[in-house]
């Protein structure tokens, strides 16, 4: 907590608070979840950076998607993402969410996750080590500083196309759209 930190705090406390209190939604999607315990516990202690796991999406603002995303998991991911309150950031682990990774031709896994929900940070590595996770987190901090970690803004702005993609994949999602503006898919169907 040196001097320039204090200056930043005084200048924009909200942004600093968003940076140093990332509550991760307690979501284990793919094979990467086995990397999360070492990140949280004694050896690499994520709590130093203010990262704490919370039980419900309502309370969290960081959404870690660790590993490949199957169809059924995507539905849960979309629902959880929509239930998270607004300044929220998503970080995807490993190559599978990027382009399907080694399951590129599997009928059951999602190829490009960012077609369905916006992703702010990618951490490469077929399950990155905790150090890589922390590099990712610090990188996320810089993104937040520059204001580039705007996944949630993109989601609300282009919600129509996100919703269209999701409905193309799943047909009926089971819950009403988050922003009930007239999305094209709905016009088409209505």
């Amino acid at each position, binding site marked *: 907590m040196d001097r320039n930190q204090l200056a930043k705090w005084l200048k924009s406390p909200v942004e*600093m*608070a968003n940076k140093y*209190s990332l509550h991760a939604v307690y979501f284990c999607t793919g094979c990467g979840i086995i990397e999360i315990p070492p990140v949280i516990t004694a050896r690499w202690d994520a*709590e130093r950076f*203010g990262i704490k796991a919370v039980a419900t999406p309502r309370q969290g603002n960081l959404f870690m998607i660790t590993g490949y995303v199957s169809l059924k998991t995507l539905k849960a991911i979309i629902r959880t993402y929509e239930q998270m309150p607004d300044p929220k950031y998503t970080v995807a682990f490993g190559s599978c969410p990027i382009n399907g990774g080694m399951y590129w031709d599997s009928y059951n896994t999602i190829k490009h996750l960012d077609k369905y929900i916006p992703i702010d940070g990618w951490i490469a590595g077929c399950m990155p080590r905790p150090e890589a996770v922390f590099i990712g987190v610090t990188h996320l901090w810089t993104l937040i500083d520059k204001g580039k970690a705007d996944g949630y803004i993109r989601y609300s702005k282009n919600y129509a196309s996100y919703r269209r993609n999701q409905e193309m994949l799943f047909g009926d999602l089971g819950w009403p759209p988050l922003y009930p503006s007239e999305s094209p898919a709905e016009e088409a169907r209505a």
Partner: protein
Amino acid sequence: MVTRIIHIVLSPLIALVVAVFLLGLSRIVIARIHRRYGPPIYQPIIDIIRLMNQQSISHGTLFELGVVLALAGSIVTVLFIPLGGTNAPPGSYPLAHGLLCPLSSSGGLLVVIYLMLFGPVSIALGAGASENPNASIGVSRKMLLALAYEVPFLLVILAIMSHYGTISIAEIVSRQQDSAWGVFSVPLSAVAAFLILPAMLGIRPFDLVGAPQEIASGPLAEYGGRYLALLTIQNGIQVFVVIALFVNLFLGGGVNVITFLLKVFAVFLAAELVSAVLPRVRIENALRFCWTWPTGLALAQMIITVVSR
């Protein structure tokens, strides 16, 4: 009258600051026990600022009212609890100052017991209105846990009240400051109170109310953003109130605010150390435990005080 106004403004502020400090402290203590660094001491403040600015969802007016009432209840309870200082004539103790307890004259310990009830009941109502079964299960556990620790807690308080023959806390504190502390005059009650302290604080062995793994943080399942911020503050103040009550009843309350806060810190540390290493119990075990050991001790103490008087 003016000092009273100052006291009325001062004690909630003290409570607020100390509460946030205690929250941060508890996370550091647990981290240090896990042999890791843990967050900076001011981490709760950062969390609160972040939560305040996070957009949240609400399930209706009662959902919001529950949070506000809970915080109000906790703040009011603080006003009834002496936070150090003494009524003794000036100069009888070093660095002593007047009793910092604004509303001690309008209803004694009984009012405190009832006002401590204000918080949990309004959170229960708020959580009930959040239409989430996790919240309902959490609240039903909270009610049962409250019932579990209330039996010994009431026994302890009754033992003290019948020992000192008064229901006003200020008098109990001053009596302890003259003669022996509560720990020595009603030792078994002190032990019983310490046994149920984790239950009243809602920390590790008895944190089955907001168990993140089982019922998605129980009553707080639907609370996010500013509501969660207020609820963390309320939880902090509730912790502070319970420990302050413990200090006042058993450790004779501080001659001045500093010693009082030191005692609070000591008791909190003891409770945290105990809780950091224990796993979470099931509600049946909690009920069975609270109704056997602490109740037995408190009952024994009560019989002793009744017989000896």
